[in-house]
């Protein structure tokens, strides 16, 4: 599968995750978000940017425990909760936010 954006073609897997992680840019993120029915606000970008920073260091999406704790540390207690993340990303921070951030889906017993 693939999609076209600004004259460039982007390859995705059967679930719409980017195949080449270096293809990611903000326009691509906005496009994927739109497909998911998510409108990107500053609050959405906070999560996506954290995910990308985390991934560049750890080569995998963070565990939810870490995402919540770090969000709390960086942006305050009201943003460090599962409920808050689900409010931003109704299909779940692990799947939907990671997809928009261009991260691969963790596989295995998860």
């Amino acid at each position, binding site marked *: 599968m693939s999609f076209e954006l600004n004259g460039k073609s982007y390859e995705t897997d059967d*679930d719409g995750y980017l195949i080449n992680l270096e293809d990611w840019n903000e326009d691509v993120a906005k496009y994927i978000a739109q497909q998911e029915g998510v409108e990107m606000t500053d609050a959405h970008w906070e999560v996506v940017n954290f995910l990308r920073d985390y991934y560049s260091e750890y*080569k*995998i999406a963070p565990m939810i*425990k870490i995402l919540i704790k770090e969000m709390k540390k960086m942006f305050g207690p009201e943003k460090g909760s599962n409920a808050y993340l689900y409010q931003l990303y109704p299909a779940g921070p692990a799947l939907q936010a990671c997809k928009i951030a261009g991260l691969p889906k963790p596989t*295995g*017993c998860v």
Partner: protein
Amino acid sequence: MAKKPTPEELSKINYSLPYTGWMYNPVEFKDGMFCNASKPESLNTVDFPNARKWSVKDEDWNLPENWKEIVLEAMKERLEKYRSFRLFMDICVRCGACADKCHFFLGTGDPKNMPVLRAELIRSVYRRYFTKSGQMLGNLAGGRELTLDVLKEWWYYFYQCSECRRCSVFCPYGIDQAEITMIGREILNLLGLNIEWIAGPVANCFMKGNHLGLEPHTIKSNFEFMIDDIEEITGVKVDPSFNRKGAEVLFVAPSGDMFGDPGTYTCMGYMMLFHEIGLDYTWSTYASEGGNFGFFTSNEMAKRLNSKIYAEAQRLGVKWIIGGECGHMWRVMHQYMDTWNGPADFLEVPVSPITGTKFENAGSTKMIHIAEFTADLIKHGKLNLDPSRNDHLKVTFHDSCNTSRGMGILDEPRYVIKNVCNNFHEMPEDTIREKTFCCGSGSGLNASENMELRLRGGFPRANAVKHVQQHHGVNMLANICAIDRAALPPLMNYWVPGVDVAGMHELVANALVMKGEKERTQDMRLEDLPEKEGAEDV
């Protein structure tokens, strides 16, 4: 992804059979019922053949020109190598005892999910090419040509079997359908016909030591967060070690426990238990996977992935090994590891340093299951337990297929759970112990794109949970398998809302009274414990 039907829609299962014979109904690929195709980079990582981009729904699967030759040659080789395979091809009398024992048949009504018919998909080819009667009489002798449609049918149905072996419990001949599926998948694999949910973890495990691809610094960081939580809950700071030479015990857990909830709560439970008894043990970031998705591709691959456990035990100079709460890991340890990568004569027969119990049952593998280890601690009164901390839970236990049918761990988890929980209720007899129903997602089928298959396959298990929910108010489904911890939460949410899922050592950790701990107000999930009854009278 296919739109998910409602439970009402999905529970209307059509068991009527088609009018035409099974051989004449070509496979129909239904959305939500199969997994995505393997990616070339995953296959390339482990040198699997025919790595290329392909998609299940494409007409052309980009097979090598001589694919038929490859399949028949592979069948011939395996018929000679594995007497079990030849026996299973020959002896089935098609009595049908297995037909309604399969969770995938019960949940789909698709006759090709009857174990007898699933086997017949490959058996018919066996007859046509490897028996005299089939060679001469073809269809009349139950044989059929190997065509592309037949191959696609194999792929569809061998990835709709979770290798749970419930059918084999009921087969009067003891035919092991899991082994037939394993060989079917192994042959498909020679053509590059794998699923990404298996191929990805296999590649990760080969390159990085575990299915998730957690690198050493990631594991370390994940543990630091878990250790902080333990301290917040108990006031006790645990201090696990990694890759430590000279430790007495190597501990190997499924990597899912180091990453995903609710597995992480069980992981915290392991650490708290070992800390409390002062066990001299180490984790490894190299042998950082108990599970073995290689087992779902080929015998050779499973052996390659498994080899790092003994290699690491030898490198670190430990005396013996404890394995965590994982399902298929234990079928591998119990039935294959010693033959593949043994003898582990550099290790000693496990002896619990706390109780002195010698685990003679692990005399050859030198590796014991943590349920055995913990049950032994409790039996000898070595743990200070307060089961009332689990009083908000009404617990039932799901036997995972591999620990129950694959090695007979039936009583140890029950013994442990009953000692750490006051409210325990068994599901109906036909759905537990050796007759347990699969979670519906085993053998690498716990992807998301095949969710309908998983919900259908898990329907019989969910039904039994619903029974104890209705009769006893059960709200917690305990288990000792990481695939269960990943697969059962969405299954429960769908069929039996109100029932949560926990690994056994999460429940142990809730009840474990640690030396120097503060008064507990939270459980392992950092949720407030309900006030104890009568507390206001004090």
